[in-house]
């Protein structure tokens, strides 16, 4: 697995033109702020981390932070968006190697648990704010989150194509349950220190239960 700091680098900067010194400085500032924010969100939680603390940790003024990010929720969203985009790619890659729908779903789940294993406090911060009306809405609308839900739908569709699942298998309901189930196992890791093996065993059972009524024949 890639180290998390890899995702801090702005994506899509493959432009051959040498960036101006000013643009480069701005980019470095952003990266510095994001690294400091990631650390503080992990240590203090979302509520506990203030823009002032983040600025201090990054060695710059609050003004410099606000020149790059609208507010704290903008910062958090930026971190989550790049992480989840990276994770979505890992999930897609993992699922592509599976032969059955059960296996594909399990690989998707496990890609998530492995990814966050090393940064559970950040996952915890995300869960905490996801329950609030405003911030939760913001998190839910992060585009890669939709991509993950879509990836689960794709696995069910592939299962139908391969004849594993019935055509009347209520894809919308089942994929939602699978996604919720995937998310709900995180607290086991966050609060109870479950190992990846334990998460895998539990997930496999849950996937089996959710798909049982959808099998063909």
């Amino acid at each position, binding site marked *: 697995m890639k180290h998390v700091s890899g995702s801090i680098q702005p994506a899509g900067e493959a432009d051959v033109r040498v960036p101006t010194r000013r643009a480069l400085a701005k980019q470095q500032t952003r990266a510095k702020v994001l690294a400091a924010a990631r650390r503080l969100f992990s240590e203090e939680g979302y509520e506990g981390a203030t823009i002032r603390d983040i600025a201090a940790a990054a060695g710059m003024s609050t003004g410099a932070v606000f020149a790059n990010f609208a507010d704290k929720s903008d910062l958090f969203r930026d971190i989550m968006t790049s992480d989840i985009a990276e994770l979505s790619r890992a999930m897609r890659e993992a699922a592509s190697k599976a032969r059955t729908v059960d296996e594909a779903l399990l690989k998707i789940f496990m890609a998530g648990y492995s990814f966050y294993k090393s940064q559970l406090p950040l996952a915890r911060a995300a869960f905490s704010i996801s*329950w609030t009306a405003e911030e939760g809405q913001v998190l839910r609308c992060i585009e890669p989150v939709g991509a993950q839900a879509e990836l689960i739908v794709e696995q069910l569709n592939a299962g139908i194509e391969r004849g594993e699942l019935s055509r009347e298998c209520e894809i919308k309901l089942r994929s939602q349950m699978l996604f919720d*189930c995937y998310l*709900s196992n995180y607290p086991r890791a966050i609060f109870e220190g479950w190992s990846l093996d334990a998460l895998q065993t539990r997930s496999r059972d849950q996937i089996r239960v959710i798909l*049982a009524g959808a099998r063909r024949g």
Partner: protein
Amino acid sequence: MRQAQKEATRRKVLDAARALFETRGYEETTVRSIAVEAGVSVGSVFTSFASKREILSQVMEDRLEALYAELEAVAPRLRGPTADRLRTIFAIHFAFETRRTRLFLAHVAAAYDWTNAPSVKPYGRNPRLRQIVLDCLADGVAGGDVDARADLEAVVDLLMAAYAWTYRLAAWEGADADRMSKVMDAQIGVAALGFAPRAREASPSAS
């Protein structure tokens, strides 16, 4: 005497906090305003509780006590298929909790808070609902509509996941108890196909 006084203060603080959390909301309520409402000093609030979180968790525990007492009395007397009994149990929950949606959501969000002292018992760490659901499934095993080989703990987790995450409809879309119960009913239907004896025999091993 001293003990009685301390208990009285504690009671006053909890009553004031419950009222303020429900009218103003949890985030907007300060410990200072709780003290004012209770007619005690801020210092004496802190002799009873370590933090606002801890007050919230006690307020919720008191509220939930009534719900769990009701469920523990009702659940064993429910009749019919396991799926329907589960639907009733969760519908009672939603009906109860959506009377104070904001407070409940604050309680859920608090489960992920950093600064929780061991004395804080946030949402999800209360074993009573799990036990009620587990008992309901065990009755199903005895009654023959839940597979005896099913991993009941995994099924409980699955149902608790469906239950908890259905609250997002309340957090994000302002859904009421009826709507949440409908969504939950469908999810219980899916789970029931998974724990039914026949379905498990027909399903291939997923490993």
